[in-house]
């Protein structure tokens, strides 16, 4: 945690200084843009942190271990892939959830599958996708990505 802060703070300071040295105006515009983006996500992010704080208290770790842990097998994988495909959680907000799941005993396979389906498969946004690509292509893409997400999860779990 402290490491994180050190890395991100030093990288941002170095980049800002270099950028400032090259072009002051651009740098200020960039900083402003970044802080605006942060402002936009701050409230939803805090809300998710509240939710995660509640969940971590209410759901005991052994339940997470049983259903999403290393021994949950195909069931854990299926839960992760299906929930990830249906849920419409903005990516940046899903990371605190993923981190909490791992700390509470979920396996890397399950979390990687969940994250990948979350980003790659969208049941809720399928109607919109169909408008762009047509029914057949949109459905093929989602099904294909669903299975690829499971493969990614398994491989990530295998390596880590």
């Amino acid at each position, binding site marked *: *945690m*402290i490491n*994180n*802060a050190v*890395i*991100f*703070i030093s*990288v941002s300071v170095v*980049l*800002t200084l270099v*950028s400032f040295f090259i072009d002051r105006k*651009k*740098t200020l515009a*960039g*900083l402003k*843009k*970044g*802080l605006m*983006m*942060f402002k936009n996500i701050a*409230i939803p*992010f*805090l*809300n998710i*942190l*509240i939710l*995660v*704080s509640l969940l971590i*208290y209410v759901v005991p770790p052994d339940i997470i271990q049983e259903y999403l842990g290393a021994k949950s097998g195909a069931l854990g994988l299926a839960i992760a892939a299906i929930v990830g495909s249906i849920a*419409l959680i*903005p*990516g*940046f907000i899903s*990371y*605190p959830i*993923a*981190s909490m799941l791992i700390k509470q005993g979920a396996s*890397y396979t399950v*979390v990687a599958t969940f*994250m*990948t389906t979350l*980003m*790659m498969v*969208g049941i809720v*946004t399928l109607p*919109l996708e169909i*408008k*762009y*690509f*047509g029914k057949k*292509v949109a459905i*093929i*893409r989602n099904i*294909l*990505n669903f299975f*690829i997400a499971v493969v*990614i999860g398994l491989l*990530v779990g295998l*390596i*880590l």
Partner: protein
Amino acid sequence: MKKILKKYKPYIWLLSFAIFTLVSFLIGFQPGKDISINFRQFFIEMVTFIPFLFIIIGLFDVWFPKAKIEKHIGQESGIKGIILVIMLAMLQAGPLYGAFPVAYILYKKGASIKNIFIYLGAFSCLKIPMLGIEMGYLGWKFTLVRTLVSLPLFIGIGYLMEYRLKNKDFKVNEVKAKN
């Protein structure tokens, strides 16, 4: 009245949580205290790196403007085409449905089917802002492994989609936003 409600709606959770925490400490409600301690940990974890991540993202945005790069990307083929669409995708942010309009632009400019789907794949798993948050929360090892595993698979999807859709008059439609 409705307008005011709408304006403050995002804060309702925060406010209720603040009141809940305050009351918990006042009456000594242990679960409430524990939850607020959890929250404090998550909050510290978040504020020590997320704002700085956004500074980095903001700087990236001004130095590598997406619109400008979009203008230069299209018909390139081969490895160069693949690398360019992946780079374009990495600069993006936001949910997958934000990638569809860009897919339309790529299609309009004559990008191959393969590159359009590689773009979508890279968009979903390689966006720089996402990678930053992922490293912060799940560690660089997880991020590195997930990225390296995903990349070839998404390129594979691109080839597979092109193989299946070639000569089947594949097209991307323009969808105008309703307002």
